[in-house]
């Protein structure tokens, strides 16, 4: 997917002005509320007409103020999953799913209904109304409906923000696997850096109606580490835990981690802030933290007033942050061995 947007739009005191070209199948638009994300997406979907500029998707002009082109939303083949599921309450799950499919031209129909409902685990819901589905089920139906319209681009406008944390991380694998399996590129819109890193490769960051950064989601997280109160959030893919002496021991690659909270998920994940990691030059004699891992420094990067240290912990990546003086005192540089200490309570199971 290649998208070029050079658009301007003003409403009252707010104005959005941006000019970018982005390629890739997993693109993110990141920004706080009021940064212009939704305005941008509305213009791309065709709900909102820019004041001026142009929009090109895969070489096709969707909007051009100069050439007076403005392709109608229904002809753009851009499906959308919204923050609220927005299912049609007067239709059953099956009828909702088929709404876009029936309106899609036959030559564009490449997605098999049975395969999709199987991937999204919707088979048992097809005959039901949408009113009494759970939040996660509704969002899966909304995703299936958007995919079955056989779009050339899927827009996901904060699709997880109405869900609680546990549901959020249950839905993410569906969002990823469906678009990957059916080869549909997507643009994922969110104000959550974690979601960006889990869902996207390339991110466009917006602030006050302007694009301020275009980078990989990993780079964006590193760049923001220094000014974010949460620091850099390490996402750890863990194994099934075993309970031991009041906490849980999770396999983590070749290492293991002691974590206060348990998880009943088959593939648990945990987040750990870079601020929660304490580095030692030598193995400490005694320490209260339940996790002490021997690591090798892979690289250093600066972010604001902080220095990020990328570590290799038994084959697992981990980012810690320290101030510049600490780097000098520890004598940290790539290849050096350090010890990383983390409390069992510092992790948050997702």
């Amino acid at each position: 997917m290649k998208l070029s947007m050079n658009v301007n739009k003003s409403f009252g005191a707010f104005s959005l002005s941006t000019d970018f070209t982005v390629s890739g199948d997993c693109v993110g638009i990141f920004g706080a509320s009021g940064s212009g994300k939704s305005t941008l997406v509305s213009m791309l979907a065709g709900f909102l007409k820019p004041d001026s500029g142009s929009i090109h998707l895969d070489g096709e002009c969707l909007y051009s103020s100069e050439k007076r082109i403005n392709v109608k939303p229904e002809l753009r083949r851009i499906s959308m999953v919204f923050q609220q599921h927005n299912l049609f309450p007067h239709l059953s799950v099956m009828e909702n799913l088929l709404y876009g499919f029936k309106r899609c031209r036959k030559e564009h129909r490449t997605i098999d209904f049975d395969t999709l409902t199987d991937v999204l685990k919707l088979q048992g819901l097809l005959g039901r109304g949408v009113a009494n589905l759970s939040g996660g089920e509704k969002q899966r139906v909304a995703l299936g409906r958007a995919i079955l319209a056989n779009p050339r681009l899927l827009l996901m406008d904060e699709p997880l923000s109405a869900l609680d944390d546990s549901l959020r991380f249950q839905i993410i694998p569906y969002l990823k696997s469906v678009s990957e399996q059916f080869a549909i590129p997507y643009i994922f819109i969110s104000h959550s850096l974690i979601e960006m890193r889990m869902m996207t490769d390339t991110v466009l960051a917006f602030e006050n109606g302007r694009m301020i950064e275009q980078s990989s989601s990993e780079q964006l997280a590193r760049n923001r580490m220094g000014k974010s109160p949460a620091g850099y959030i390490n996402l750890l893919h863990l194994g099934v835990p075993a309970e031991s002496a009041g906490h849980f021991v999770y396999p983590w690659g070749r290492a293991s981690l002691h974590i206060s909270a348990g998880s009943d998920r088959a593939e648990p994940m945990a987040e750990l802030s870079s601020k929660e990691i304490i580095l030692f030059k030598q193995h400490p004699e005694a320490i209260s933290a339940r996790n002490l891992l021997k690591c090798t420094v892979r690289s250093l990067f600066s972010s604001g007033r902080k220095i990020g240290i990328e570590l290799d912990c038994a084959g697992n990546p981990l980012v810690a942050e320290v101030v510049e003086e600490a780097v000098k005192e520890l004598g940290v540089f790539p290849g050096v061995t350090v010890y990383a200490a983390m409390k069992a309570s510092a992790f948050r199971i997702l």
Partner: protein
Amino acid sequence: MFLEQSDIEAILLTVKLAGLVTVILLVAGTPIAWWLSRSRSRLKGVIGAVVALPLVLPPSVLGFYLLLAMGPNGPLGYLTGKLGLGALPFTFWGLVLASVFYSLPFMVQPLQNAFEAIGERPMEVAATLGASTLDAFFTVALPLARPGFITASILTFAHTVGEFGVVLMIGGNIPGSTRVASVQIYDHVEALEYGEAHRMAAVMLIFSFLVLLWLYARRPDAMKTGQR
């Protein structure tokens, strides 16, 4: 018999008139309500006020102007004359036309509220799924506004059944043609036939009460919003 033959005739004519007006207004009022609910035009206020005029105008004022418009020198009268349809005043079709104007806000306002309550998002969702505006209107907006349609239809029907002033101005009092139930009651009272007037009035009272009871039972604020 509880009601005289002329009473039954008047009731049947009233039902025919109210039914026709409701159907005509469903067709004509829906696009007006949709436009009022979606438009950002400066004319929206003007059109909205014109639609609501029958709510505040004395029926005799509306009837007087409609009579002038339908008369041989009025624009409507001129048009029907040219089309070979003859004069509309004191005919059933003149009554239908006058009732359409008189009951217009009772159809348009509940529908407008129902469409506004739906919001833009369902239409946008339908568009991203490949539905044209017309397709989305029929497959999404109309079903979602169904409670508003029921409320609007009932209110329009009931209001047409109960109208008197405009009917008398435009239709007069022609048995089988323009003498509707309300005029029949008026006739009975004028002729000091209080028993007959009582019976007809009771039928009207019970009908109106049942309509309102049903509406309020569906939802207490249905009268105000016209939504589900």
